[in-house]
């Protein structure tokens, strides 16, 4: 099965030999791709069925909650921390970003852009919380408790003095230009550092 496009971008950007923690690693899809290119990748995942699947694949994954359990890792334990499609589900995304950059000097953070034109249009015309391809769950049961836009995230990292090393914008699973990304990107991947 082809790797999810945002994961493929991250897998491509991590150099072989790096030590990586994938926070919210699911059943280990990205870890498998990283290990295949010689990356020492480990995971943290909240769902025990996913953790079991990842360990059954021979991966090192710990059942835990990104809101609390990142504290158990020492400073700079990894070269990269990865948080893909999980930021918007955390209790305090700002603190999670701090933790990512405590346990690693660099972090990949990817999230669905809540300012994508479809989302804006749905809210504007229907007056209802949007249900889209990347945000498929109704407001009352969505795990996405902190919707975030590309501009919001840029504001957050600027306020924290965090450096943005690189950004990838995706639309319909394909890269889209940075111009008007706030409107046009369904999905953003940031590589940030201290």
């Amino acid at each position, binding site marked *: 099965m082809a790797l999810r496009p945002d994961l493929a971008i991250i897998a491509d950007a991590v150099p072989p030999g790096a030590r990586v923690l994938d926070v919210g690693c699911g059943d280990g899809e990205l870890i498998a791709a990283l290990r295949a290119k010689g990356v020492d990748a*480990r995971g943290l995942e909240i769902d*025990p*069925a996913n*953790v*079991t*699947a*990842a*360990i*059954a*694949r*021979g*991966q*090192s*994954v*710990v*059942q*835990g909650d990104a809101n609390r359990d990142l504290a*158990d*890792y*020492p400073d700079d*334990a990894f070269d990269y921390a990865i948080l893909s499609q999980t930021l918007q589900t955390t209790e305090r995304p700002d603190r999670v970003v701090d933790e990512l950059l405590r346990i690693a000097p660099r972090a990949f953070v990817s999230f669905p852009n809540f300012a994508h034109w479809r989302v804006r249009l749905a809210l504007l015309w229907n007056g209802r919380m949007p249900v889209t391809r990347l945000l498929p769950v109704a407001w009352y049961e969505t795990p996405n408790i902190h919707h975030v836009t590309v501009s919001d995230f840029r504001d957050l990292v600027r306020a924290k003095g965090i450096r943005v090393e690189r950004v990838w914008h995706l639309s319909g699973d394909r890269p889209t230009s940075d111009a008007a990304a706030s409107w046009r990107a369904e999905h953003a991947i940031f590589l940030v550092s201290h």
Partner: protein
Amino acid sequence: MASLLHQIQHQSVTIAAPLALDSGQSLPATTIAYQSYGALNADKSNAVLICHALTGDQYVASDHPATGKPGWWARMVGPGKPIDTDRFHVICANVLGSCMGSSGPATPDVATGAPLGMAFPVITITDMVRAQALLLDHLGIARLHAVVGGSMGGMQALAWAATYPQRLGSALVIASAARHSAQNIAFHEVGRQAIMADPDWQDGQYYGSTRAPTKGLAVARMAAHITYLSEEGLTEKFGRRLQARDIKSFGFDADFQVESYLRHQGLAFTDRFDANAYLYITRAMDYFDLADPHDGRLAGAFARAKDVRFTLVSFDTDWLYPTSESRRIVQALQSVGAAASFVELSAPFGHDSFLLDVPALDRLVAGALGSGF
């Protein structure tokens, strides 16, 4: 009867060199009884050591010589099983202090030839591991692909990583802990007192006599057995149902099914276990605290074990070694940068879940052993 138990012949080796123990005492010679399954490969890199629990034995995947029952982990170990004997050379040794052929309280004194009884030195979990290392030296196996254990077996796997980190590739620790809690010690003390309060115990020198402390040992087993099950499991299995009667007897017979079950478990246990061995092994577990030699910092125990891959599994209904104890180990491992996996599985059987039908555990064990091989 204990006397019959000690007449069984087991495959064993005797290492004539003295074995220094944590207590400061030493054993002049150490006998280790063991079973092995599957072929050792040419470069001796496929050995997996399975460590058994308190009342377990080396017959992990073969019929028990006293009871005739299948091996205690036959569902996990064998050709095509999660611990695949077509791939791995599996070794399981009877722990030091036990009663299935390894040195223990029934071992004869070299001078007098009489069983040592309570003159056998108190041993620790790490002493058990040292004895296993002697066995591997004898077998010419320098390094283990993995050490696997549940409950007290998990404690040995942890002690392996702490004591001989260069001798194992990975440690698989199931339903276990890095220390015995006050509650764990308390339950064990109930069991020991039941044995020692039995007049047939005779200060441990019952081996040559016609009497053995089977009543005390049975009570010890009954108390311990409760701790291996979940309240939910007991309720589901027995509830308040009466045993072979329609009305309460207003007496002290086993009115309830759960009483009858426990009495049976207690009695059956005395056919396959020695009371003194029970005292010694429970003591070893109570003394277990991997953080103790490191000023209470568990991470200190794993400082040299960074290159060992750890997999820890707990069960949500296990109140004997609860998930919090596994998490504590994971935190210590993460703080030293060791590769660790951990998951809490959902299973209804309490502590005993590690021995029973939990398909997710099978997948985990296979995965944890398969990688890097």
